[in-house]
């Protein structure tokens, strides 16, 4: 199987202008441990504007920890993390809050506030910022239409299915037009059909808004779908790229026992000589 980037590999804004390549997120020799051996050790990588980076690895390898380090929910023991150009590994929590509002995060189980309606969950940030109610309603409807769940506006999370909760979580992450998106196993525990719906939404977000993103998953099929499909705005659904082509801005990272063992394109991943990568792919 031979896969090559579909076209010009440099990401572009919707206007067609090439993007500034300064990373929105950069890990430099990051390590963290919790009362034992390191969970992550000496991790270095970056996410450039317009880029989607997929973190692969088996369960318990530290993928979610890596994502929580990315927006300062956890602090590294060593190394530095630059988020939007600012060093956050020692930044006080008070200064981190405004920075976090610029990044959207989708949690593994959605992490919706179960006592709030879908409207108030999606609008959570806007409510805290005291945005007028009319504007909140309009923006929530827009975000819910994006995830095709406009009818859930007044419902409580408990009355939604697992897949719907993830889609509402995506709407919540998107409502403020984030500059970076962090997806923590967005298809974990979902059936294949629902997983495909979620992946289609992520592809739609990537190809419509071009938001840089970091996505962790242990599901190869989802990762490959992300890399080999694009969103067709006219058809309103994702379509496969021509045979042998991949999305040039979607690349892979792979973790093994807390260490980064691979950083590259799908083509490089498939042809990696690393024994663990080969075993994981099989």
């Amino acid at each position, binding site marked *: 199987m031979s896969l090559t980037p579909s076209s010009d590999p440099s990401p572009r804004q919707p206007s067609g202008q090439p993007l500034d390549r300064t990373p929105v997120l950069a890990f430099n020799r990051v390590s963290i441990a919790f009362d034992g051996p390191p969970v992550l050790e000496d991790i270095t990588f970056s996410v450039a504007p317009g880029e989607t980076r997929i973190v692969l690895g088996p369960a318990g390898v530290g993928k979610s920890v890596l994502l929580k380090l990315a927006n300062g929910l956890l602090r590294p023991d060593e190394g530095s993390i630059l988020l939007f150009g600012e060093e956050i590994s020692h930044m006080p929590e*008070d200064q981190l809050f*405004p920075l*976090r*509002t610029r990044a959207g*995060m989708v949690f593994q189980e959605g992490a*919706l506030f*179960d006592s709030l309606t879908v409207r108030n969950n999606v609008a*959570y940030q806007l409510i805290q910022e005291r945005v007028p109610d009319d504007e909140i309603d309009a923006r929530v409807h827009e975000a819910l239409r994006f995830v095709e769940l406009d009818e859930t506006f007044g419902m409580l999370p408990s009355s939604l299915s697992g897949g719907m909760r993830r889609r509402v979580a995506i709407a919540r992450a998107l409502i403020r037009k984030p500059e970076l998106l962090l997806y923590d196993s967005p298809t974990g525990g979902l059936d294949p059909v629902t997983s495909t719906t979620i992946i289609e939404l992520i592809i739609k977000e990537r190809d419509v808004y071009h938001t840089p993103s970091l996505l962790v998953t242990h599901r190869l099929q989802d990762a490959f779908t992300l890399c080999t499909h694009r969103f067709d705005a006219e058809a309103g659904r994702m379509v496969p790229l021509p045979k042998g082509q991949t999305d040039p801005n979607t690349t892979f990272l792979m973790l093994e026992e807390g260490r980064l063992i691979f950083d590259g394109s799908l083509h490089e991943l498939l042809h990696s000589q690393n024994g663990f990568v080969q075993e994981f792919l099989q």
Partner: protein
Amino acid sequence: MAIEVIERTAKNLVLTVQDYSLFSFRSFMNLWRPPIYWPDFLVQSDIIGAGSASIVLLSGFFTGAVLALQSAATLSQFGATAVTGQFVSITMIRELGPVLSGIMVAGRNASSMASELGSMVVTEQIDAMRALGVDPLRKLVTPRIFACISMLFFLTIVADAFGILGGGFVTVFLNHQNGTEYFSKAWESLRYPDIIQGLVKPLFSGYIIASIGCFYGLRTTGGTQGVGRSTIQAVVNSSVLIIVVDFLLTQVLLRLFPLL
């Protein structure tokens, strides 16, 4: 091996006290810095104040009633049943009203705070809140602390009032004594230091209940089992601490306002 266990336990204890001190200091100071979540304060005041009113009212009433029963039996041996009102009102206002209200509110609200926040921790809602740029201490803890302090103050007054009423009920309907004498003695014997003592204590108890409930809730680890553990720790530690602080406060207040 035994020394290692003692060392680890001692370190954990010191670490917990240190974490709690920092946590409660930050939560308290947040009231003086924006953003302040007043709607959350009102919601919590309703949950804690209105929600706990019935249990405080009933426990106050029956405590006063029991005090009147017990004291009348003893006082009658000295022909002093006329001072039942004085005995009940001073005991309720100085000691039993504040302590009993504190323990009842701790049982109801420290547990509810620990389990609610603990569930939010294990379902990643607290992380989601932080990721959305909202400080859980400001949003969840500070409103609970100040709602609990202010509501326990008023609940203690309710407990005191119903305790005296309970004593009056027993005095009139069971002991068949003069109700006017009971209430006039209860009123006349009260001095401002008694009232100050009775109303300072709930301010501390309210702070203890909410800060400990939230502290253990936010420290929850280990899934749903961890939520149960946090709830137990919150109720036990806040109840014990209320009694310990009551003892210390009584010492201090008795020095400030000595008995005649």
